[in-house]
């Protein structure tokens, strides 16, 4: 055990039992699993399952090794259903076989050649296999109607694909295909970027919650290297994190109103959000993609003038927001469309280890800011809103309350912010250390795992909260009216840029430089 992290090296034959004990007996949250090609280090592959014991503020890393030639590790999906996707990702990207389950292509496109595993250390980041284009036909059903949504759809802000199987106007089943937006971020970082550069790459994982990612990455590296970051920098990080949360939730609320046809609510919510964008620019110099995080601290300080202006803007936002919510949430059509739709019962929410407002709306009292305190959150007092209904309205109300709590958190931190430096001077990051951090993004817990290397991470794994929340859609959409499908999909506040990290190669072999 080291600080708040428990390391368990699990023999393969005991992995499933240990995972079951952690998940079912100790009710730890399953966060993600990380496949690592450690052949250059010790001749093995490994898989690390990350759990968190939220009641005791502990991270539990359960690590298992596999042979280099034919890496095989027992699957834990029978006891931890939430591990399904991360196991398949490790299978796709590293070629690790998980015993006791079916394997399918999850993140790599169907035309990706067999036997090529992009995240292995012997595959260079600029390797481009020759591929042949493959067409996929829409699933045909003679008994059910099939409604394709995506990959491009007015209701979706990023490419993803849903096939809704409908009987009349009722959804009876759902097929999801994602991972259309992959930029090889992990491979890039591990191959050609240094520690400080990766902050800026991490911030570009997502256009809405980018700062959460860059903070999570910086904290993971700082934890691995045991760096004492100046407190003032941690306060600034927490303040900007909450600004980003307010902005994200306001954006979502506006979009949700638009989906139920209440465009007046959409426009007014985004009008209020404009003040938060101004605030972000005041504090960081940018409306979005702030670029102020570095390993060891931050690049921009908050002076007294900025502090006063921030408090003034927050007072305006709070007042206007409360007025808007009082009207908007009580519009009859908004209530009818949100209440009782897209319900996710608590038992499924627990099994799938959903995150963020999705979890809290289904009665799971979980928030990394309180349970696994980081940055300056331990110095702020705040409530974690929890609702038990699990429907779209509950998810909306959780976000509404979080906006008001975030405003309170920023006010508290601005009041208490200590004087001092904002950046650590002269530090080193030793090799071979592990750091894992969970940061509560607007959508839920971001998880960044870092295994330090020479000048750059040996392994960097990112798990965004939408990764855990998407599988819950199958339950939320079943037996729901078709009209509520986009609203229910939107209710998890999906961020597919965060979720998709598979290399995409054009089917005709063209190389395209993305972004």
């Amino acid at each position, binding site marked *: 055990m080291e600080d708040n992290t428990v390391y368990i090296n699990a023999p393969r034959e005991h992995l499933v039992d240990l995972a079951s004990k952690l998940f079912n007996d100790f009710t730890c949250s399953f966060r993600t699993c990380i496949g690592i090609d450690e052949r250059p280090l010790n001749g093995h592959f490994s898989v690390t399952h990350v759990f968190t014991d939220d009641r005791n503020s502990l991270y539990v890393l359960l690590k298992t090794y596999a042979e280099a030639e034919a890496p095989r590790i027992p699957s834990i999906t029978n006891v931890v259903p939430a591990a399904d996707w991360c196991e398949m990702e490790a299978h796709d990207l590293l070629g690790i076989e998980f015993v006791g389950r079916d394997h399918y292509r999850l993140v790599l496109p169907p035309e990706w050649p067999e036997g090529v595993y992009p995240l292995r250390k012997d595959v260079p980041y600029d390797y481009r296999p020759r591929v042949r284009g493959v067409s996929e036909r829409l699933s045909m059903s003679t008994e059910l109607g099939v409604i394709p949504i995506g990959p491009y759809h007015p209701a979706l802000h990023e490419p993803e694909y849903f096939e809704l199987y409908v009987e009349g106007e009722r959804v009876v089943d759902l097929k999801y295909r994602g991972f259309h937006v992959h930029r090889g971020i992990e491979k890039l970082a591990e191959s050609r970027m240094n520690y400080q550069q990766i902050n800026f790459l991490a911030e570009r994982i997502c256009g809405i919650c980018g700062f959460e990612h860059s903070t999570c990455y910086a904290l993971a590296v700082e934890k691995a290297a045991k760096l004492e970051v100046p407190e003032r920098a941690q306060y600034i990080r927490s303040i900007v994190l909450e600004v980003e949360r307010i902005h994200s939730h306001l954006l979502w609320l506006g979009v949700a109103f638009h989906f139920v046809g*209440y*465009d*007046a609510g959409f*426009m007014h919510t985004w009008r209020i959000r404009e003040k938060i964008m101004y605030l972000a620019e005041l504090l960081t110099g940018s409306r979005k993609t702030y670029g102020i995080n570095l390993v060891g601290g931050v690049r921009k300080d908050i002076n007294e003038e900025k502090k006063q202006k921030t408090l003034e803007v927050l007072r305006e936002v709070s007042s206007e927001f409360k007025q808007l919510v009082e009207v908007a949430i009580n519009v009859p059509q908004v209530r009818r469309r949100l209440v009782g739709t897209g319900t996710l019962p608590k038992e499924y929410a627990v099994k799938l280890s959903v995150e963020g407002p999705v979890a809290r709306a289904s009665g799971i009292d979980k928030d990394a800011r309180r349970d696994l305190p980081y940055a300056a959150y331990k110095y702020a007092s705040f409530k974690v809103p929890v609702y038990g209904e699990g429907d779209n309205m509950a998810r909306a109300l959780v976000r509404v309350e979080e906006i008001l709590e975030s405003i309170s958190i920023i006010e508290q931190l601005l009041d208490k912010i200590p004087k001092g430096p904002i950046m650590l001077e002269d530090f080193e990051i030793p090799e071979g250390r592990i750091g894992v951090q969970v940061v509560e993004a607007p959508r839920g817990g971001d998880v960044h795992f870092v295994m330090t290397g020479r000048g750059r991470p040996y392994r960097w794994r990112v798990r965004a909260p939408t990764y855990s929340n998407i599988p819950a859609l199958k339950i939320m959409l079943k037996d729901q009216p*078709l009209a*509520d499908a986009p609203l229910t999909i939107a209710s998890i506040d999906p961020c597919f840029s965060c979720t998709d990290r598979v290399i995409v190669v054009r089917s005709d072999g063209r190389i395209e430089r993305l972004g």
Partner: protein
Amino acid sequence: MLCTAITLLAGTSLPVFLDGLERKLKAALQSRIGPPITQTLYDLLKLMIKESKQVHTVPYIILYFTSFISCALTSMFLITLYTITWDFMLFALALSLLMVSLTALTLIPLLIPNPFSYIGGMREVVLSLVNESAFVASVAIYIVSLHFKAGFSTPSTPHLLVVTIPALAIMFTSGYALTGRPPFDIAEAEPELASGVLVEFSGALLALYLYSNLLKRFLVKLFVATMLVTLIAGNGVLSVVLTCLITITLWILFTVISVTLGRSRVDLAPRTLAKYYIGLFIIPIAGLVVLAYG
């Protein structure tokens, strides 16, 4: 002749500018600047010069027919308001033509072999079954209540309270629902389906379809306004002016109402409307019976 031409031009172009006014008003209520009032005209003109991709199995002639009927009706309303006194038969004829036009417009998407169009069309049909019936019934009750004494005349207070006003309330609601504004804009619910009834229209055909919908909105209000005015003011210039003013007022009122509401769902909207109409219809029907025997 000149007056007729001006009336025709005004009648067929007014819906376009009223839609522009609606967009401007919505923007103001939503704290936006909004497009200019002529934006709808610009949009339609631009669509007219774009390529129209036609699906060969779609009977677009129905769209031409609907548009022609709507234009003819608009002209008929305005010209006849000026020239002759409306009576019961003329109202019945106008209402029948209006319903034919509305029904044809509703049926077009069902003839298009596209699941989105079909779903949108069925949504419109379900809503129309409730709404158009209520609209026709409320018009009938309204006219009957005013014709109760020989010739059209202002009804007595009991008639007004028990029959005329509830009929007007139903006419107002069903008229609003017929215009396809929130919460009844479920046919073309873009965020829900990627598209609805408009999916197979493009270019000039799309412009014609959109214009037909604008005429439909205008006609519904024009019909209600005509009934109100002719039963009070007779015919002539005053009649035309009053009718147009009431139509514009109704358009603005409907805009303000639509801004405050969200979109309903195809299973909720008809049920809610049906309950509302049944509740309201009991009052005038019972009232008519009581007053007849009273």
